[in-house]
C-alpha cells in the first residue's frame, strides 16, 4: 500500500490519465470489431479521439428550462469515473488511492455519477431524459447488488475488500481454478454488460426511443457536455473490464516498479483487455437486445451466479 501522499497523488494522476487516454480506443475497437463481424468497414481506430476533440471544441448549448443540476451532471459523472479509476489496480499490483477505500467506495462513487446524470436528465423536461433516467436507475438498482455479490465472492475468498490487497493476495496464492471463480466471473460479466450499456441490456448505437436507456438519458447533451459523458462512459467500461481482469487473471501485473515489469504488465493488460473486448463484441453481435422487462431476469441470473459462487466456495 502506498502511504506517501505525494507518490499516491502522482500515481493516481498518471493512472487516471492513462485510462482516460486508452478508453476511447477500446470503445472504438469494439465498434470496429462489431462492424467487421457485420461485413462493414467500421470506424477508423482513432475515431473516438476525433469525436471527443470535435465535441470539446464546440460551443456549450443547454436547455433554457434546465437549472445548474443539468450543467453539473456531466461534470460529476466524469469526475466519479475518473475518481473510480484510482481505487483499481491496473498495471501495478496496487491501486493509487487504495488507502481511501475498496470495493464499496468504488461502487458508491459510481453510484454518485449515476445519481447526478439521472437527476440531470430529468432537468430538461424532455420525456426522453426522464425515460432514460427511470430505466437507467431501474437497471442499476438490480445490477448493483449483483455486482456487489460477485465482488464479495471474490473478496471474501481473498479476505479483503480492498482491490489492491485482493490482487496481491491472488498473486501470492496463485490461481486456484476453483469452480466458484468461473461462476462469479460469469455473474460479473453480465454486470459488465449491463453497467456499460451493451446488448443485450442496452444498445449504445441506437437512438430509437423505445430501445434507448443510457442514450435517452443523455440525449439532450451536446458539445463539451456530451464529450464528458462519452469519455466517462468509455472510462467506466474500461474500468469494469480491468476489474474483471484484476479479479480473475491478475497474472502479469507488476509487483515491483521497474521499467521492464511495467512494460510487461502493460502488454499483458492490453492483451487481456483485448480478449474481454472480443468477448463483449461477440456477445453484442450474437444476441438480440432484450425487452426492458426481461433484463431483470438476466440480472437475476447474475445474482444467482454470485450466490452460487459464494455457496460453492464456502460450503
Amino acid at each position, binding site marked *: 500500500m502506498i502511504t506517501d501522499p505525494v507518490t499516491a497523488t502522482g500515481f493516481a494522476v498518471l493512472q487516471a490519465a492513462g485510462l482516460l487516454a486508452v478508453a476511447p480506443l477500446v470503445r472504438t475497437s469494439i465498434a470496429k470489431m462489431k462492424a467487421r463481424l457485420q461485413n462493414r468497414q467500421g470506424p477508423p481506430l482513432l475515431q473516438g479521439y476525433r469525436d471527443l476533440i470535435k465535441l470539446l471544441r464546440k460551443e456549450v448549448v443547454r*436547455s*433554457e428550462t434546465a437549472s445548474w443540476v443539468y450543467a453539473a451532471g456531466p461534470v460529476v459523472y466524469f469526475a466519479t469515473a475518473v475518481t473510480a479509476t484510482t481505487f483499481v489496480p491496473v498495471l501495478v499490483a496496487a491501486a493509487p488511492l487504495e488507502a481511501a477505500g475498496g470495493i464499496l467506495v468504488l461502487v458508491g462513487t459510481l453510484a454518485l455519477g449515476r445519481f447526478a446524470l439521472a437527476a440531470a436528465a430529468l432537468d430538461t423536461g424532455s420525456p426522453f431524459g*426522464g425515460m432514460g433516467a427511470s430505466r437507467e436507475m431501474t437497471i442499476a438498482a438490480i445490477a*448493483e447488488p449483483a455486482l456487489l455479490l460477485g465482488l464479495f465472492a471474490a473478496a471474501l475468498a481473498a479476505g479483503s475488500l480492498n482491490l489492491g490487497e485482493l490482487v496481491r493476495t491472488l498473486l501470492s496464492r496463485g490461481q486456484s481454478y476453483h469452480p466458484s471463480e468461473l461462476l462469479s466471473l460469469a455473474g460479473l460479466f453480465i454486470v459488465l454488460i449491463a453497467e456499460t450499456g451493451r446488448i443485450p441490456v442496452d444498445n449504445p448505437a441506437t437512438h430509437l426511443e423505445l430501445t434507448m436507456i443510457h442514450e435517452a438519458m443523455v440525449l*439532450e447533451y451536446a458539445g463539451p457536455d456530451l464529450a464528458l459523458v462519452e469519455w466517462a462512459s468509455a472510462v467506466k467500461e474500461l474500468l469494469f473490464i480491468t476489474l474483471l481482469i484484476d479479479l480473475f487473471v491478475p497474472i502479469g501485473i507488476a509487483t515491483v516498479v521497474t521499467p521492464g515489469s511495467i512494460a510487461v504488465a502493460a502488454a499483458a493488460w492490453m492483451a487481456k483487455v483485448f480478449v474481454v473486448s472480443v468477448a463483449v463484441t461477440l456477445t453484442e453481435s450474437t444476441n438480440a437486445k432484450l425487452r426492458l422487462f426481461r433484463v431483470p431476469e438476466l440480472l437475476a441470473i447474475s445474482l444467482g451466479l454470485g450466490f452460487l459462487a459464494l455457496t460453492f466456495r*464456502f460450503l
Partner: protein
Amino acid sequence: MLLSAALIAHVVAIVIAVALVRRPAACRIATFGGAAFASALIIASAVQALASGGVDHRVLATHAATGFGLSLTIDGLAAWFLLIQGAVALPVAIYSIPYMRHAVPPARTPVVGIAFNVLLASVTLVLVSGEVVGFVFAWEVMSLATTALVASEHEHPANRRAAYLYLAMSHVGTGCVIAAFLTLASGAGSLAFSDMLTGHVVTGSTRTAVFVLFAVGFGVKAGLLPVHVWLPEAHPAAPSSISAFMSGVLVKTGIYGIVRFGVVGLGVPDPSWGLAFLLLGSLTAILGVLYALAQQDLKRLLAYSTIENAGIIVIGLGAAMMASSAGRPDLAAFGLTASLLHALNHAVFKGLLFLSAGSVVMATGSRDIESFGGLLRRMPWTGACFLVGALAISGIPPLNGFTSEWLTFQSLLLNFSSVPGLVRLNFPVGAALLALTSALAAACYVKAFGATFLAQPRSTAATQAHDAPWCMVMPQAALALACVGLGLFPGPALGALHRVVGALPGVAGASPVGAGAFTMTAGSPAIDVVRPLIVGLALLGALAVARALTWRGRSPVRRTATWGCGGALSAEAEYTGTAFSKPLIMIFGAVYRPTREVAALAHGSPYFPHAVRYRARIEPTFERFLYAPLTRTVLWLAERMKVLQAGSLHAYLAYILALGVGLLIWLGGTR
C-alpha cells in the same frame, strides 16, 4: 446538571404558553424558542456525558417500605440517543418558529407548542429513566403528546384517522412492553433496570417470550414490519417539522428500547433471535424502500423511507446478536456501532429531508409530487439542502449515509468470516439485499428530487412558489452541513460510539472499528479501510479537471428550448414521478400487485372520448391481508363481549365477587 435545566426550560416554556394563550405569535416564539434552548442544553449534556464516558445515576425519591426508587441514569447509550434527540430537536424547534404560523391555525398554536415541549421532555425522560415506572409513564406521555401533534389539523378526517391509528398501535406496543417488563420485574424482584437487565433474570422460553414482546412493543415505535402501518399515515398528517422529529427521534426511541432491553439486556442472545432480526431487518428495508418508490405524496415517501432505514438499523442489530451468540463480542460491538451510527445519520438526513419537504409543502400548499416541478429555481436553498439529504440517504460517499451503510456491510461480511456453519450464508445474502435497498433508495430519491425540484412547474402553485425565510433555511443548512461533516470526518462520532458500545453488557471489550479522525477500518486483520476525506479530495480534484475541460472563459452558454420532437414542449410532457417508478413497480409486481383502470370518458359515441381517466394503485398488502381481518376479529369479539357490560350495577358487583373468590381459591391452591 444540564439535563435538569433542559427539563426546567420545557416547563417554563409551557407555563409561558399557558399565560400567553391568547397571543399566538408570542406563544409560538416562547414555546419553540424554549424548546430550542432546552435542546441546546440536551446536546450539551449528551456531549458532556459522552466525553466523560461515565455513568451519571441519580435517585430522585425512594419509598422506604418497598425499596422502590425513582431514578435517572445517563449512561453512554442514553447519552448517544440524547445527542440524536438534541441534534434533531434544535433545528426542528428553530424551523418551527416561523413554520407553525402557516402550519396550524393561530388559535391552536399554544396547544401545539405545549404538546411539542411535553413530547421533547418525555423523550428525554424515556432515555434517562432508570426504572420501569418512570419509563412507562414517560413512554405513554410521549405517545399521547405525539397523538395530539398528529391530530393538530383534525379538520381533515384522514388526520383524525391517522392519529387514532397511531394511538391504537402505540398502545398495542406499550402493552407488549409492559408485559415484558412485568415478567422481568417479577423475576428480578425489583423495578430498577439495573436489577432487571443483569442478563440472567429469565431463562429458556420465557426469555425468548420476553425478547419477542420487546421486539414487537418497541418495533411498533421503530416502524418494523408488520407493525409499521401507523408510520406512513401519521407522518404526513403531522406538521412537517413534527414529522422531522418523529422520523428522526421518535422512531429511534423504539430502536433505543430494542437495543437496551432486547439486544443487550437479556444476556447472550439466542442465535435464532439474531437470525430473525437479520431477516426482519432485510425485509423491512426492502419493502420500505419499495413502497417509498411507489408514493406520490412527498411526505409519505419520506415516511416509508424511514421504515427502510429502521430496517437497515435492525440488520446491524441482527448481525450483532448473531456474533454475540457465536461468542464474538468484538463483532457484536461492530454491528451495534453500525446500527447506532446509522440511527444518528438517519436522524440527521431524514430530519433535513422532512424540513425541506415542509418548506415545499408550505410554498405550494400540496404534498403531491406530481404538482411540483421546477422548484429548484424558485427555492434554490431548500432544493440544495434536499439534494444533500437525498444523496446522503442513498448511501453515496463521502456523505454520512455511506459511512454507516459501509459499517453495516462490514459487520455482515466480518460475521461471514467468523460465524461457523451454513447459517453464515445469510450474511452475504443480507449484504446483497442491503445493496439492493441502497440502490433502490437512490432510484427513489432521484425520483423525489427530480420530480419536485427539476424541469418545469406542473401547477400554478409551483410556478408561484418562493423560498422559505432564512429562519427556516438555516436549520436545513445546518443539518446538510452535518451530513457532509459526519461523512468526511466519522472519527469523533465513532470515537464516542467506541465508548458507548464498549460499556454495554455482553459486548464489553475492544470494538474493532478503527476510529482515527479520518479512517475507518473493519476487522483485525483489517478486511477494509476507508478514508472518506481522501475520497472527497479525489472527487474535488477530478471535478476541477472536468470543469477545466468544459471551461469556456467568459463566452456565454447558448440557451435554447429543449427539443420537443418538432413541437413546443410543455410541462405536461415531463416524466412524472409515477412514470419514473413505473418500471420498478412492474418488475416488483409480485410485491406491489399493481392494478390500473383506464376509462375513456365520452359524451356520446365511445369512439370519440373527450378525456381519458387513468388510475393506478398498488395493493396495500399489510392493511388488507393482516389488519383488515384482525380488525374484524377484534370488532366481532367486542360485539360478543358487550353482553358482559350490561350497565347493571348488580352484575358488576357480581363480577368483582366472582373474581375475588376465584383469586382466593387460586392463591390458596398455590400455597
